[in-house]
């Protein structure tokens, strides 16, 4: 579904990514981990068509990526909510932009907001929400698009452990029901092990890809499972080596 070949990217002087090769299958859930500033967000932006690589080639569904596509959703690291729109109409924004009927998706939006624990906040404005609540709105906005490819940049970073677990489980469920290609940036090894089919690590400056592990565990998985903890522990060791 996603193919990167020899992709490099520089911002002016800063060489952010170098020689990235990566393939993500149609229904594969890939987690990307790596140190802060190593180029994870840049990588997602390249796949989304928001940046053009300085070198190399990015393809989605067989077509070279020249601009953003509607079947690819992007959940940004920062919530990026429109401050003048209510929570509900922020969630419905993609629907409006795609020219679909917001009315038809209203129930779905309510459902999603309920799922992430924001029931009752539909008519609030973003500035009335806490940081984690804003992030969850942004998650709903991304989920309502039902895309073929989901790009998620640290979607749970501002969430507490419990909410995080709940949402991870929800995300797993969604992925089991309607599998898609997911690239998921996270700082939590546990989360990566819980969710991903495959984990890659990006080493810093310039970012390079290291395949770390195929998490060959059966789904659904749950945090605290002994097998998961084992994989996590191994990974942490490897991670230390790669990113030292």
């Amino acid at each position, binding site marked *: 579904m996603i193919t990167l070949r020899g992709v490099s990217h520089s911002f002016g002087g800063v060489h952010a990514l170098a020689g990235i090769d990566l393939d993500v299958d149609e229904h594969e859930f890939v987690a990307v981990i790596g140190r802060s500033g190593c180029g994870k967000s840049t990588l997602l932006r390249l796949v*989304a068509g*928001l940046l053009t690589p300085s070198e190399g080639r990015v393809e989605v569904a067989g077509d070279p990526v020249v601009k*953003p596509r509607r079947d690819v*959703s992007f959940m*940004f690291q*920062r919530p990026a909510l*429109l401050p003048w729109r209510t929570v509900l109409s922020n969630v419905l*924004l993609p629907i409006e*932009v795609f020219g679909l009927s917001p009315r038809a998706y209203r129930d779905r939006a309510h459902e999603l907001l309920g799922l992430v624990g924001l029931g009752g906040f539909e008519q609030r404005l973003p500035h009335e929400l806490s940081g984690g609540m804003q992030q969850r709105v942004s998650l709903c906005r991304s989920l309502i698009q039902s895309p073929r490819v989901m790009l998620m940049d640290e979607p749970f970073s501002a969430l507490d452990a419990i909410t995080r677990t709940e949402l991870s489980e929800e995300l797993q469920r969604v992925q089991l029901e309607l599998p898609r290609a997911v690239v998921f940036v996270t700082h939590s090894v546990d989360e990566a092990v819980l969710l991903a089919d495959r984990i890659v690590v990006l080493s810093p400056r310039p970012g390079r890809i290291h395949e770390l592990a195929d998490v060959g565990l059966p789904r659904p998985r749950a945090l605290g499972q002994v097998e998961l903890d084992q994989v996590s522990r191994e990974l942490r060791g490897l991670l230390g080596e790669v990113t030292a």
Partner: protein
Amino acid sequence: MKVVLPVLGLLALIGAWWLATIVFGVDSFLVPSPADVVASFLELPGYLLEQTLVTLWEAVAGFGLSIMIGVPLALLIVGSTVLERMFYPLLVALNAVPKVAIAPIVVVWFGFGIESKVLMVVLVCIFPIVISTASGMKSTPHELVELFRSLDAPRRHEFFKLRLRHALPQVFVGLKVAITLAVIGAVIGEFVGARAGLGYVIYTSGASADTSLAFAAMALLAVISVALFYGLGYVEKKVLPYA
């Protein structure tokens, strides 16, 4: 508070003015005392209010038209660097032409009726609208623009649902500047070939050395301006409750 303070400010101004006419003996043919001005107004209240309505209507009509022309123009300018580079300088140049000097041309082409006055209003107040709208739209935060781009949003959505909406507070600043200019534009329009309006009153009374009457008309102008300005502020509060 909301009403008391402006009234206090006004009283302070009038007091200072009165004091100045008495203490410094400002010549009354230059600056009449507030009492003279009030007397002038009370001589012809109906007539003056009628003229006020004429000017008000011209200013409002021209202002409305300016929004209808200026905002799309700003959209074009933001949408195309080519158009911006080609026509922005012309807009600036056009704005620099003293309207008083081209008033006769406007009257010759558009007649003595309201059309020529409305056109004058448009000429004076379109520029602040265009520039503030355009610059507000350009200052949209990059992260929100990126969001719209990530959704492959049509240009029109990026413009209307994002940039223009984001620019609204700045558009209102432009509108507030424009609305006071609109009143002046109407007056300048009335200086040439008008039979009614406060500008006409000022011009005729100025020429016949009836300074108090001219000041009464200017005071009414100020009232219109303040009313329109705060009316716009009220609309802004309704449209942008959280800005």
